[in-house]
């Protein structure tokens, strides 16, 4: 279907759901609902905004695209997939939710998520908290030096950045380097004790990806490729996502 056919509102037929189905294997089974309600009864987001997963799916099937576009509920479903897990038809409601997020113009999506995504696009850290690669290096080296001295059993502990040929590429949630650097250390210690050969990347070290939550596919891909490319460039065999 051409892009132009995705006009929102007023239609009897659901253009939104049709479009989503075209993008999913087996159409996400979206037209196979038995209306049994198993999804809704075990969904923690049921009742928020007067909505639940079954109702949301019915609204989409009935072409109530305008209501779906206006609802804040897609931002309250965490896409946890419990509904799929319990659904007898394995219907992919979270994908419907994800696409519903994208119905809104980017700048009208929740400010916190938008801001975190934009922050990640600012530099090559991909950090939602805006820490630069230099900030990250400074914190890691500083904390490492401090602990090597204070705890001599760990005087040989490593926390490398861009170590060529390391087996594991590890990323890190920005919260530790930015707000609680001491919390970096236990993980380093475990990796040291087991003798893991690992490295952070100067690019794409930040594990969080709010562009994905924003349903901004291009930025999501940018962030993911940046970090994956760094792991490839360093020749790492395993990508460890601590998120």
């Amino acid at each position, binding site marked *: 279907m051409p892009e132009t056919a995705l006009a929102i509102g007023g239609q009897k037929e659901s253009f939104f759901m049709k479009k989503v189905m075209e993008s999913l294997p087996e159409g996400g089974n979206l037209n196979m609902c038995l209306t049994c309600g198993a999804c809704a009864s075990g969904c923690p987001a049921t009742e928020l905004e007067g909505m639940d997963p079954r109702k949301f799916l019915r609204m989409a099937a009935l072409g109530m695209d305008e209501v779906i576009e206006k609802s804040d509920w897609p931002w309250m479903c965490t*896409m946890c997939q419990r509904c799929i897990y319990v659904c007898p038809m394995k219907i992919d409601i979270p994908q419907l939710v994800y696409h519903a997020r994208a119905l809104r113009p980017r700048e009208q999506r929740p400010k916190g998520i938008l801001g975190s995504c934009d922050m990640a696009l600012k530099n090559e850290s991909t950090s939602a908290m805006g820490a630069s690669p230099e900030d990250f290096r400074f914190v890691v080296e500083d904390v490492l030096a401090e602990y090597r001295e204070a705890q001599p059993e760990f005087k040989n502990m490593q926390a490398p950045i861009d170590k060529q040929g390391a087996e594991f590429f590890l990323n890190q949630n920005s919260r530790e380097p930015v707000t609680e650097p001491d919390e970096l250390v236990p993980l380093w210690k475990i990796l040291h004790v087991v003798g893991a050969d690992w490295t952070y990347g100067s690019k794409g070290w930040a594990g969080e990806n709010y562009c994905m939550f924003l349903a901004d596919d291009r930025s999501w891909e940018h962030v993911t490729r940046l970090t994956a490319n760094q792991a490839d460039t360093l020749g790492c065999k395993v990508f460890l996502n601590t998120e």
Partner: protein
Amino acid sequence: MKIKFTVQDPCQIVRKSFGEPIAEDLRFVVKSIVGEENFIDMEPNRSNNFCCGGGGGFLQSGFKEQRLKYGKVKDGQIQATGAQYCIAACHNCHAQIHELSESYGGHYQVVHLWTMICLSLGILGPNEREYLGNDLKEVAVFHPETAM
């Protein structure tokens, strides 16, 4: 010490990625650390667990009231175990469950798995204990003289 622990199965790691095998691995590690008799599972658990409400960007979406309401079921499941600690091996879970504990008066501690592993190995220093409760803050401290 008779301290009880439960564990949150992160949706992203268990149901959405590696399924039951990793849920078993997680329990193997946790039981090895705290002792089998001190571990108690939430209901439901593993791939059938309830999301805590920290995922999908909810933490940054601005809908705080709804987010805490979403997490009320999870809080109830944790409180039903009677555990003093919930181990959260995911950042989003950690942040959200910590807030649930404070909001609903459960006052259970929420800890990273890495903290517990290092504690059990006797290599957890005094400044790496942000999330331990008073019952464990002073236990097996590595290099206590470095406390800040």
